[in-house]
């Protein structure tokens, strides 16, 4: 790879002709304009939460205000209103954290386990099982929605977090990703060595394999947390008690709430979006790598 890079392309460092210069400037202008278009809504959100409600209502502006604290307390007070039946932004935040962390933990642990089984053992039906997993990836999940909803009704799973957490155990795309990673990075010899030392199979997986595939686990954990945090349809389907609401649901609730002021409302939106923005800010490279490896659909 390196060899071909060094041989290829004698980059011309000669001066640009006027046409080349102009076209280069145009390209930069396009890039910056698109970047501005992408960032504008996010910047406007951040500016909005610092402004007073009446200022926001009056129209869009880049003027930064001084009402950040007021909006935050306004949001907390509004959602603490006993009339609202127990809505609270802190509670919703906690609910979102509980759901995304537990579902992600189950997802990556059991996916790694399944991928490990496919990688290390030669069991009957292995070839079929592996093909089956790939087949499952392309099946749209929407087909099961009605059946899952009625099943949850029968089993009294409405207003619990079971419908979001337990199904995460079977995540074909995560298994596929882990399997690819194991193929490239994890040699069976490690397992044989552990066996020589008399380690139990289960302990071998936990102590030898899991630490080894940490990068893959981290990538998939990021995707799991992001998709679970942003999940809107699931909570809308299964949760009706306000104290169980997740953040996207709170946002939806506030949208239909005539009594909330605009400032606190935008603060609620910022609180919902901020954790993902922070994760992206620090870990964008891991996320992009995962995307290019086909981690996220």
């Amino acid at each position, binding site marked *: 790879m390196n060899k*071909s890079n060094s041989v*290829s*392309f004698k*980059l011309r460092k000669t001066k640009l002709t006027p046409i080349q210069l102009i076209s280069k400037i145009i390209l*930069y202008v396009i*890039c910056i304009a*698109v*970047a501005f278009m*992408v*960032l504008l*809504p*996010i910047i*406007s*959100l951040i500016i*909005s939460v610092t402004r007073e409600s009446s200022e926001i209502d*009056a*129209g*869009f502006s880049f003027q930064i205000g001084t009402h950040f604290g007021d909006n935050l307390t306004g949001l907390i007070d509004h959602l603490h209103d006993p009339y609202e039946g127990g809505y609270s932004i802190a509670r919703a935040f906690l609910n979102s954290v509980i759901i995304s962390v537990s579902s992600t933990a189950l997802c990556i642990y059991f996916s790694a*386990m*399944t991928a*490990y*089984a*496919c990688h290390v*053992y*030669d069991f009957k039906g*292995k070839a079929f099982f592996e093909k089956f997993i790939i087949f499952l990836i*392309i*099946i*749209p999940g*929407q*087909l*099961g*929605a*009605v*059946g899952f909803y009625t*099943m949850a009704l029968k089993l009294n799973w409405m207003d619990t977090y079971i419908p979001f957490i*337990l*199904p995460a*155990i*079977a995540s074909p795309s995560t298994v596929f990703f882990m399997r690819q990673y194991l193929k490239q990075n994890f040699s069976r010899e490690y397992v044989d060595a552990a066996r020589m030392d008399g380690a139990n199979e*289960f302990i071998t*997986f936990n102590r030898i394999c899991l630490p080894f595939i940490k990068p893959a686990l981290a990538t998939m954990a990021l995707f799991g947390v*992001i998709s679970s945090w*942003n999940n*809107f*349809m699931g909570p*809308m*389907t299964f949760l009706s008690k306000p104290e169980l609401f997740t953040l*996207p*649901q709170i*946002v939806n609730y506030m*949208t*239909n709430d005539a009594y909330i002021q605009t400032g606190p409302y935008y603060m609620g*939106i910022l609180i919902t*979006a901020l954790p*993902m*923005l922070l*994760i992206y800010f620090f870990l964008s490279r891991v996320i*992009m790598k995962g995307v290019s490896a086909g981690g*996220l659909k």
Partner: protein
Amino acid sequence: MFKSKRIRNPNEKLNKWAYLFIAPFILAFLFFSLYPMISSIAYSFANENETVYENFTTFSNYKIIFEDVNFWHSFINTFIIFAMNFIPQIIAAMFFAVLFTNKRIRMKGKGFFKFVYFLPNVLTAATVVIIFRLMFMRGAAIYDENMQIIGYEGGPFYHVLRFLGMDMFTNPLYHTWTVRIVIAFILFWMWFGNSMIVFITGINGISDEVFEAADVDGASPWRVFFQITLPILKPIMLYSLITSIIGGLQMFDIPYLIRGQNLDPSVPVFAGTSSTDTITIYIYEKMKIAPHDYGIAGAASVILFIFSLSLSVAMYFVLFKEKNYEKKIWRRIKKYEQV
């Protein structure tokens, strides 16, 4: 051969552990995926509101659906919104992918642009919709000295729509076509960075020698793009097309939330019912809202399923066919060299 067998033998017993390791996956799959799927299909053939499958009424639910105007509306809507989002998305993604990988142009700040363009993809759809409402919002009216309305204050994107003559002199979120444009634009905004990263990976995967050979031949950048880059990326584009269609068919959050605001009784609501409903919203409402037509919802999801699955299978075969595309391009380049 014998040797390797003898070495593996002691571990043969251990292979049974594999079943234990894949058991959680299989159980969860059977219980949370397969059973619900089968039960959805069973519902689609059952009587209306029937939870027992004894009354097997075959295709009555499908008949109802095919005669339901709302279903067709949501079906067509899904495709209109998808097309309006996907075509610009793939063009923009391809443009930036080529720009950022091109070794002659050598853009500076590539990392920054990639970072920014991908950013919306991690945001919660629920929040995105509300931010965009501010962007597309029409503000207070502006009057001239005769107290005639000459325009409106509003968010920056509202002014863009007005400039293009698409605001219809009212809030863009309340009009059939403008609201579709808004939804498509939000989807574009969220997903073009993702497609761009996929394409960049694809272009980086093409061996440099191909470009080099073209460069030696003195091929123009346009020719390189249309005759080398694009054909080699064909499988990746197809992949991205099909995954986008499958994802697009399941479009829910953004249209649902955009519609959620049409609660103001003074505003005509037609934009909120027929122009933003997607198939998934149709299924969701049939399932969730009384009288809970599970049969209808099941039938609609079966139709959606057959549709997506046939597209996926088509992709599978096309990808298999196109596997050796790079070799073909090489042959083509050699032909040019001979001429």
